[in-house]
């Protein structure tokens, strides 16, 4: 993305009306945060939603540079292509990136394979995120979550209040009328802000296509080494994934609908190699987007539980 302000001439917008409205709403939310908070940060998970959120943020503050840093909570189990894409994006856009890993968890040897998905997520994502927010004293944190992803996210406010200790109380959320967001907090409290609340998976891909936004190549189908586990395809991204006797990676044409830690993220069989093809495929999909996320499946309310404890 070119962030220079030097363009001349009149360039009228060509987005369809609905995407234009969504874009404007997200920009308004982001500007609210920069006007009301002292130390905001943008959670950058490297996924497609983060790519869209970052793109919108650059638009929102243009011609000023991005007025806050990005924060990536690195569990050390992300796909290698994600980390390459992250570093390349930061270089290309010239934005500030903070990377935080829960060193204490790392030292204890916590990981998705030995500890299981729920302990790994709790220690290396939720705890790590809280450490990073406390360390830098951030009072507002943008997240790319959308309400269409999951039932407890469908219930969350755009400005979502967190008490001291980053606790979410879903039974007692602040009323949020019109676009009059209540951004007032006391010391130690914070707000999680979700500018993409009203976007759907289809809106995201439609926008990525029309705005020509770069995303991690893992979203596009190509032959990858995978093994079949729990009814989904797990990619063998490095030699840390233990293989059962007789288990042998096979090359399949697959892609990912969402991205997380590679041992916990299932791929789908797909031939979609462009955003257009992904849109067509998503339209006829019979499974939801987060089906490939093994961390969601433990129990139906598991996302709400993680969120109450501080997960995004």
């Amino acid at each position, binding site marked *: 993305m070119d962030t220079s302000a030097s*363009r001349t*001439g*009149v*360039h*009228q*917008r060509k987005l*369809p*009306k*609905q995407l*234009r*409205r969504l*874009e*404007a709403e997200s*920009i*308004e939310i982001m*500007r*609210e945060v*920069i*006007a009301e908070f002292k130390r905001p940060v943008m959670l950058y998970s490297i996924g497609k939603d983060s790519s869209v959120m970052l793109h919108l943020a*650059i*638009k*929102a*503050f*243009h*011609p000023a540079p991005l007025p806050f840093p990005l924060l990536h909570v690195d569990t050390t189990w992300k796909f290698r292509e994600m980390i390459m894409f992250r570093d390349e994006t930061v270089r290309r856009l010239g934005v500030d990136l903070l990377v935080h890993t829960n060193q204490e968890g790392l030292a204890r040897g916590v990981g998705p394979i030995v500890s299981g998905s729920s302990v790994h997520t709790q220690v290396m994502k939720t705890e790590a995120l809280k450490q990073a927010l406390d360390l830098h004293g951030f009072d507002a944190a943008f997240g790319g979550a959308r*309400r*269409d992803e*999951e*039932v*407890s996210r*469908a*219930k969350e406010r755009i400005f979502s209040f967190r008490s001291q200790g980053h606790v979410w109380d*879903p*039974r007692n*959320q*602040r*009323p*949020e*009328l*019109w*676009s*009059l967001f*209540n951004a*007032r*907090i*006391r010391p130690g409290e914070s707000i999680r802000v979700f500018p993409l*609340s009203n976007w759907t998976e289809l809106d995201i891909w*439609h926008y990525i*296509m029309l705005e020509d936004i770069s995303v991690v190549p893992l979203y596009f189908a190509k032959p990858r080494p995978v093994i079949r586990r729990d009814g989904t395809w797990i990619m063998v991204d490095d030699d840390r994934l233990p293989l059962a006797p007789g288990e042998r990676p096979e090359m399949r044409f697959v892609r990912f609908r969402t991205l997380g830690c590679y041992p916990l993220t299932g791929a789908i069989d797909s031939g979609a190699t462009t955003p*257009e093809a992904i849109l*067509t495929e998503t*339209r*006829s*999909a*019979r499974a*939801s987007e987060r*089906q490939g996320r093994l961390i969601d499946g433990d129990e*139906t*309310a598991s996302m709400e*539980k993680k969120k109450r404890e501080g997960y995004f």
Partner: protein
Amino acid sequence: MDDTDHPVVESGKDLLRFLTCGSVDDGKSSLIGRLLHDSRLIFEDQLSALARDSVRHGTLGDQIDFALLVDGLEAEREQGITIDVAYRFFTTAKRSFIVADTPGHEQYTRNMATGASNADLAIVLIDARKGVLVQTRRHSLICSLLGLRHVVVAVNKIDLVSYQADTFDRIVVEYNAFASRLGFSSIMPIPISARYGDNITSRSEATPWYRGPVLLDYLETVDVETEALAKPFRFPVQWVNRPNADFRGYAGTLVSGTINTGDPVVVAGSGRTTSVKQLLAYEGPQTSAEAGDAVTITLEDDVDIGRGDLLAGPADRPEVSDQFAAHIIWMSDQKLMPGRSYLARIGTRTTPITVTGIKYRIDVNTGNHLAANTLGLNDIAFCNLATGAPVAFDPYDQNRKTGSFIMIDRLSNHTLGAGMIAFGLRRGTNIHWQATLIGKSERATQKRQRPAIIWLTGLSASGKSTIANMVERALHAGGYHTMLLDGDNLRHGLNRDLGFTEADRVENIRRVGEVAKLMTDAGLIVLCSFISPYRAEREMVRGLVADGEFIEVFVDTPIEECARRDPKGLYAKAKAGTIKNFTGFDAPYEIPQSPEIHLRTIGQQPEQLAEQLLRTLAELGIAG
């Protein structure tokens, strides 16, 4: 989800935001589940999770309970109710929809209002067996106040009344009779069964007597165009974008109207006129922008504008006033107190706000106007309000974005209420501040002192008045010009019409604060000795004077000690129950969180405490 549609060409589709509301168990969540299911918008993994959950939490035996698709919180599933609003998204060949599924319980009315505030249409569900209930009326009234003009009356569970036309007709007549004064421009009654899918996506054979549209067809075609483009140009300045000395842009979103490069604009508050130099988007300068667009505006002239200002067209300006009348929906257990200072968000501006009078409370069942001294949770009322500074606004029925506000607690920061402005009050628009030739600083300089309010707060018999008198005597002896305001003394005159209820205590302190402020304007050092139990009022007085001029002194004596001293015999009377609302006893005292001076009186003589207060005043540069 229609795979025949080519991905790129759905630009023409518009968006309808609607909510489902009505009483508990009228089937709101079930209806949304049914709509999504019958539109083939539920994924296979979601359906299998739903089947699993229906066995565990469902209320329909072996059948799939569609409500569980939207009741996403653990507590909701366990109790089988909706607590908070859920948003669902779906698209058909004709339209995109954002649905807000809102709770029916009165307790969660604030969440229903949250869902309704951004909706264009409401589906009011009514259980065919129960007919129009209090919550049906409450939700309809709130929809009306929030500016919704289109209502679908979905008479649900029609299967349970044997698909009888006369039951449906009776409910429709009853609803229309009550809704006729709510100002809806369309009311569409439809008999449905969310459980069996009657008249939701396809016409039911069980209701041959019904000739109107089925629900989904109606939602796809109803015209709710709000004509935001045809309204006057309004642009609340959200953020000043100043990346370097050469660029100063005003970032914000057009809430109504259109604007072109070169158009004249006026800053509503100051009346200053200039014109648009550039309408900047990331893609480059635009020739025009319309309602809903987020842009950055640069102006031809260097005018003083910041967050909270409102740009408008010079020919059609908003009202500017510090007093207006508005409908208020109160959303907190903490009562609304007239006279108490809250914070308001109006557009992008945050300002102190006070309810100066409750004109009437609305009985949601009958629509009758009732008298009220305070407002409680879920009360709806029409009030007069005053803001700390003049604000620009439009009546809510002309502009939802510039006519709405929320009220926030100054200390907890909770959102307490929502307001819809009806009109400006003339006494606000026409009474202007009369500048005086001699100012506060001239008056103070002549007295060779810095004016201040020294505010002693604490329980009855804590020692406030004793200390205040000693301090005043010392200041007077030192040549300072002082005044002492004492709670009991003022209640003999200025405040003799006030009692000791929370509302009267709020008004008591408001008057005292205004008097003390006038005396600081006169250049005096004003000692105030008042129990003043509520933080909000002490903070309100602090807000009346300049920074550093309000010195809060907490006279900290434990209640047991006060009761032991009891010089006026009041604690004894309170214990005996002969006086009510006694602070510390059956009325609260909110301890100061960070007073300028904290006097712990146990083990200290009044002389020592007065000495300590005087020393701190000297350190603060006020006296000595």
